């Protein structure tokens, strides 16, 4: 039958058979290049399975390539000239069949030349630019072609986490969370992609002078030393905005929530001091200071159950306190307040609170090349090492973070950055199109070493550091992982209702779990009493009365000061110490119909 014919699929479903698959493919190609078929249609012929795939659906990643015909580029010098003079646009190039989009399937049939020099008659396409193999974001990283692939990916990922100016209208927006960098700078070393998409007009990084040297062990395992002087000059300083919102919900009883300044009559009144920042309308005044957990929007809710009318016919209204408070560990100034209504006419209030985030130990920074780290120490400016010209670096990176990660791009960017700042012009670091000679020439011209190293002196003693140290400006990003939002600690505090064990989680004031493996470590160590303290004494210790005759938990009547067994009339009651978790287990066993009989003995 059709065993020797090739199968033809459109968008993955079999539509028919064809005698001459390569002709079919060529026909579709021709029509596409003529513009008779949409330019996003792709054809691929798989010789092994003898199948032709035609794809017109969404979700395929395509990339543009220059078409070659008989080993000659269709993008001739004449056309290029027209493009330069803006006579021809990109769309024209595609319509005229000079450039076409390939998807991953059709790419399997293509032989792509990387540059014009290596074109042979076998080649079907020519790369528009070497940089085109990178994504938009990764091609914004200068010297990325010198990096290890994993670190290049890492560097690209960081663009999402970097703090910059998120939008032009950030002042008017009410995002739940927003970071804004104080003084973003254009990078000294840029790429053509960055210019093309005009990312340099809204930068998200700062050019920090980075020296690669250890410093008293404070920058080991990827920690970063930051100069306190730089911090005071606002390196990495940013604002953190958080929006709190509330609305006046209406309830079936006819009553509704209300934005007010709560008074003493309201159940759950916190005290005068808590509401001192609130204006007449119950909303915090703009630019007033809000403490950790302070009231942002004063609000009261109606009682949960409608009260019965008393004998005098007066409804005593007991409204509840329902104010919105700021988060724990977050204080700041009220930046903006918004009052509005939703479609149903419910009043909505949003309050944006601004916190200044000054870089401190634990904040995260990252270069373009995936060299990330948290601040290990903020060092006084006078203690920082300095060069013979008196320059003090902003950051100190540990040299161990370079060789194993092979981020040569980071080092090259340092040298290029140095040349850029000396020459006072921005240097192009587009991958594959780098003028290294020129950069080194510039360094020499200004009397610097070609290898980017400089002599340093110890900040504390003034002694010369023997080895010359690699230093130069690199673009660094502040990432939105900030310690103030993550730090947590606990001594005593809230417990869970069911198990009476300490709560878990930062917002609930919980601690860090002392888990099973940690407990095992103590058992292995043989410290039985420490284990007992961690698991019982500081968790859910319980003193309980037990009937030693029937082995059931006794009743402790605190009002009559009487302890008795519910089953035995004259049971002998003893006090024991167990964990509350075990008491729960006993209850559950009883619910299962199992009689857990406790046998009591002396501790010693």
């Amino acid at each position, binding site marked *: 039958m059709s065993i020797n014919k090739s199968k033809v699929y459109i968008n993955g479903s079999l539509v028919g058979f064809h005698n001459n698959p390569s002709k079919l493919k060529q026909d579709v190609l021709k029509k596409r290049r003529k513009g008779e078929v949409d330019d996003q249609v792709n054809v691929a012929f798989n010789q092994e399975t003898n199948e032709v795939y035609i794809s017109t659906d969404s979700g395929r990643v395509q990339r543009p390539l220059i078409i070659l015909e008989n080993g000659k580029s269709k993008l001739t010098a004449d056309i290029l000239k027209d493009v330069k003079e803006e006579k021809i646009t990109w769309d024209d190039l595609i319509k005229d069949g000079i450039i076409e989009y390939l998807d991953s399937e059709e790419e399997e049939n293509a032989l792509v030349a990387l540059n014009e020099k290596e074109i042979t008659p076998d080649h079907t396409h020519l790369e528009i630019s070497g940089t085109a193999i990178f994504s938009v974001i990764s091609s914004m990283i200068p010297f990325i072609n010198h990096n290890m692939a994993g670190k290049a990916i890492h560097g690209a990922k960081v663009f999402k986490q970097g703090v910059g100016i998120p939008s032009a209208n950030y002042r008017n927006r009410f995002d739940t969370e927003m970071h804004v960098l104080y003084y973003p700078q254009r990078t000294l070393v840029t790429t053509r992609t960055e210019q093309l998409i005009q990312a340099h007009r809204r930068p998200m990084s700062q050019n920090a002078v980075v020296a690669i040297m250890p410093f008293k062990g404070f920058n080991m395992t990827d920690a970063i030393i930051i100069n306190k002087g730089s911090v005071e000059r606002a390196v990495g300083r940013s604002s953190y905005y958080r929006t709190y919102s509330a609305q006046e919900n209406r309830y079936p009883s006819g009553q509704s929530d209300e934005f007010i300044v709560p008074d003493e009559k309201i159940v759950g009144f916190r005290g005068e001091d808590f509401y001192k920042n609130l204006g007449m309308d119950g909303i915090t005044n703009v630019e007033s200071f809000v403490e950790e957990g302070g009231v942002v929007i004063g609000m009261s809710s109606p009682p949960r159950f409608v009260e019965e009318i008393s004998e005098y016919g007066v409804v005593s209204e007991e409204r509840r306190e329902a104010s919105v408070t700021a988060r724990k560990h977050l204080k700041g100034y009220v930046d903006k307040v918004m009052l509005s209504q939703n479609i149903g006419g419910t009043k909505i209030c949003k309050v944006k609170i601004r916190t200044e985030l000054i870089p401190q130990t634990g904040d995260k920074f990252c270069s373009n090349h995936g060299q990330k780290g948290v601040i290990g120490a903020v060092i006084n400016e006078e203690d920082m090492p300095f060069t013979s010209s008196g320059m003090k670096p902003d950051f100190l990176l540990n040299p161990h973070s370079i060789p194993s990660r092979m981020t040569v791009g980071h080092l090259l960017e340092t040298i290029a950055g140095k040349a850029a700042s000396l020459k006072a012009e921005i240097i192009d670091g587009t991958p594959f199109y780098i003028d290294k000679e020129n950069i080194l020439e510039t360094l020499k011209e200004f009397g610097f070493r070609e290898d980017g190293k400089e002599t340093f002196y110890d900040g504390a003693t003034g002694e010369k550091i023997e080895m010359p140290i690699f230093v130069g400006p690199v673009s660094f990003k502040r990432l939105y992982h900030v310690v103030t939002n993550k730090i947590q600690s606990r001594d005593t505090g809230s417990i869970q209702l069911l198990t009476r064990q300490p709560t878990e989680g930062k917002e609930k004031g919980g601690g860090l779990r002392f888990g099973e493996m940690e*407990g095992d470590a103590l058992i292995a160590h043989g410290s039985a009493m420490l284990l007992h303290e961690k698991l019982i004494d500081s968790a859910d210790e319980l003193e309980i009365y037990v009937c030693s005759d029937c082995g059931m938990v006794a009743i402790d009547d605190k009002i009559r000061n009487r302890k008795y067994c519910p089953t035995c009339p004259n049971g002998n009651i003893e006090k024991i110490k167990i964990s509350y978790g*075990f008491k729960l287990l006993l209850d559950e066993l009883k619910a299962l119909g199992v009689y857990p009989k406790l046998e009591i003995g002396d501790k*010693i």
Partner: protein
Amino acid sequence: MRELPKNILERIENYSNKKSFSDAKKKRLIDIVTKRYNESLVTPGDAIGLIAAQSIGEPGTQLTLRTKHYAGSLEVSVGQGIQRVIEIVDGRLSSKYPSMKIYLKKDVFATEKKLNKFAKSLIDIKVSTIGDFQEDFENRTVSFILNHDKLDELDLDKEETMTLIYDKINDTYVSKRFTPNKNGINFTFDKTTPLFNIRKALLKWNKIPLFGVKNLELTVITEEAGEKVISTKGSNLSEVLKIPEVDTDRTYTNDILEINKVFGIEAARASIIKELKFTFESNGIEINQRHLSILADLMCFNGKVKGVVRTGITGEKTSPFARASFEETVKHILSAAFDGERENFKGIIENLIVGQPILAGTGRVKLTLDPKNLKKMIKKQEGLEEN
């Protein structure tokens, strides 16, 4: 101070005799060894089982998850990594990659050719491995067609094979006639035979064993310290040991349950240790022998190989709470309640559940202080110090 075990004392004796030590010197040696021996003893109350579990479990996280297959090489692949460790520790009934190492008696095979032939003769060959059946349902005939390439590969004699198949099939199935042929055998069934029966017969015939040892899928000759050794894929210890050319003392299989069957529980215990050690060491991890032997002891102590699973040793714990805390909590608690079991609180988990100090480490010691006696003791001590 504990005295030295007999074994060590004997070794010291032998050593001193060999070096002709004087009595004083020998005594000093014994003193030193005794001191070291006592220093390296485990403190009473140490949770050695838990330490063993941690010492095996932590390096276990570094083991590879996948089995390595080397394409093209004739090497027999052995399960490696965490998969294999779980297999051993769980005491599974069947290993995923059973393998044998067959050592041969000295100089049984003069030439390499003979050895090769012997190695190939071990491979389990069934009717289906050397040919296919073709059915003709209309005429109710079935023809067996030999695969000549396969025959050559396995070094089999054509006529011998043919007659063997001819005989074996004759034995097993009756209602048919046959005519032998060059390339194969034709079988003609009775005209009344239901087609279903023909297919059934074929499936049966395919499984008829012809040559070799059952379960040995592949044999490869490897060299070990200048000696030729046959490695196999698949394992059948009891049958292989019956072959006269095989060195029964050294031939080994990695199938622990088979070792248990053939040699008994002590051999199984030793092979658990050996296999675990081999698996960890081939991943570049060294684990102290003591941890492994504790595990192996626990798995073998009641005469059968039992895994560390709820059907194995974990399910046989005496404490109902300890069993319930592992898996199937409700089932264990209810069955304990039906049997009226008593919790003795001798283990660790039981005491943790209740909230009592555990009976290990410092919790093991039951020391009470008698203030009257204490004063006496202090005086006595002071007197001693003055002297």
